[in-house]
């Protein structure tokens, strides 16, 4: 069985985001799937409670979104059966079928490489731990493929929570080789599948911001301005 997941904690996103994501998946996925929301406040039938074991390591403004990493240890969620896993952030919009994500060669898990990033800018900021090329808004893996990341964080929690500003920085430094896209842990979703609402699509040739690209699969609204909230609501109206 295919499992499609999201993670929700705190008050940044309302349950409406979860519902809209689920509705979009139902519209754009032709495979049978289970939908789960890993959350600190389980309410719905699809909600699974997030563990809290790493909360004690959290330092404000460091290692943002660490709760997403619990999902890499599938055994923490006994209801979650099956081999195939696909994760989406809550603030995404689908334009086309997401079947693509279940038709990939799974020799390695897949993650977003932000093609909209200027590589030289990312390299300049590499040792500052900012401007990661890797973006964890969409991740596709088979059961067990990312368990070593869970264990790596678990075994080095104090150091990792102190060192990295976000989990994307952690992925960027530890599990990705900025010198060689082909190496290390992840495959990277190809260009023109996933783009960023507030950053663009591909650097430098297609960088228009805050436009919809309806020939792509996923738009990431990975920002939280009021304007972006309005934009995502507008797209939901058209899309769901």
């Amino acid at each position, binding site marked *: 069985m295919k499992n499609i997941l999201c993670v929700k904690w705190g008050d940044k996103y309302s349950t409406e985001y979860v519902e809209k994501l689920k509705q979009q998946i139902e519209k754009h996925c032709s495979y049978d799937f289970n939908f789960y929301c890993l959350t600190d406040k389980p309410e719905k039938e699809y909600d699974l409670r997030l563990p809290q074991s790493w909360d004690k390591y959290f330092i404000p403004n*460091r290692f943002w979104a660490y709760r997403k990493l619990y999902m890499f240890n599938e055994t923490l969620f006994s209801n979650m059966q099956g081999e195939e896993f696909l994760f989406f952030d809550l603030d995404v919009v689908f334009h086309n079928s997401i079947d693509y994500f279940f038709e990939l060669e799974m020799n390695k898990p897949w993650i977003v490489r932000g093609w909209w990033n200027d590589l*030289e*800018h990312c*390299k*300049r900021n*590499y*040792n*500052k*731990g*900012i401007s990661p090329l890797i973006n964890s808004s969409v991740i596709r893996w088979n059961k067990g493929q990312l368990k070593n990341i869970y264990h*790596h964080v678990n075994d*080095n929690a*104090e*150091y*990792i929570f*102190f*060192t990295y500003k976000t989990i994307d920085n952690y992925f960027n*430094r*530890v599990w990705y*080789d*900025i*010198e060689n896209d082909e190496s290390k842990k992840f495959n990277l979703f190809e260009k023109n599948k996933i783009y960023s609402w507030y950053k663009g699509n591909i650097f430098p040739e297609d960088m228009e911001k805050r436009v919809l690209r309806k020939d792509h699969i996923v738009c990431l609204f990975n920002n939280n301005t009021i304007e972006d909230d309005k934009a995502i609501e507008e797209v939901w109206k058209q899309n769901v």
Partner: protein
Amino acid sequence: MEAERLACWFNSLALCKERYPFLADRLDVSLTLQHAEGKLWIKEKLYDLGMHFDNTIIIGGWYCQYLAYALSDYTDYMCNYEIDPDAVKISKTFNRYQKEKFTSLQKDLGIQDLDGNHLKQGDIELIVNTSCEHMYPMKHMRRKIFEQIMDTPLCVLQSTDEDKYEDHINCVQSPEELAEQAGINNAYYMGTKVLNNGMKRFMVIGR
């Protein structure tokens, strides 16, 4: 040797600016007076201690021009463990004049082990980290290194209280705090220096 070093540095600066134009301003910054002051302070204190080391770990040495020069008379071999792949290449370029005793590797010693080839160069007798403000307290790395070599090398550590930079994630207020963070119980030297740009640097040498 001095002439060879200077020629190498001038040549390397031009070469690296050509290869990494997006790092041109960083290269300039790495050679400023305040960087020289901080590293030559180590040279002065190691001279006072009168010690010589087989093999040295440099943690986060960045482009490592002044630092590798400062250590050169006091160690037979040194390896700069850097997280930034461009810094690894640039530090090797600047240290071609002493390539028989200097290397650089992309590793984060907070979560990765020492390099096997580096360990073959001799007993690790010195750990140098002049960028403690950029990383987790050194007690952790010292413990990890101890677990690998079963020894407690002398440490030379520098940090600052300057917290206006985003990547200064672990500033300290004094050399005593730096020593405490690193678990240094036996300090041979602790001091403070105000650099040319006004930044206060703290240094601790000890075990």
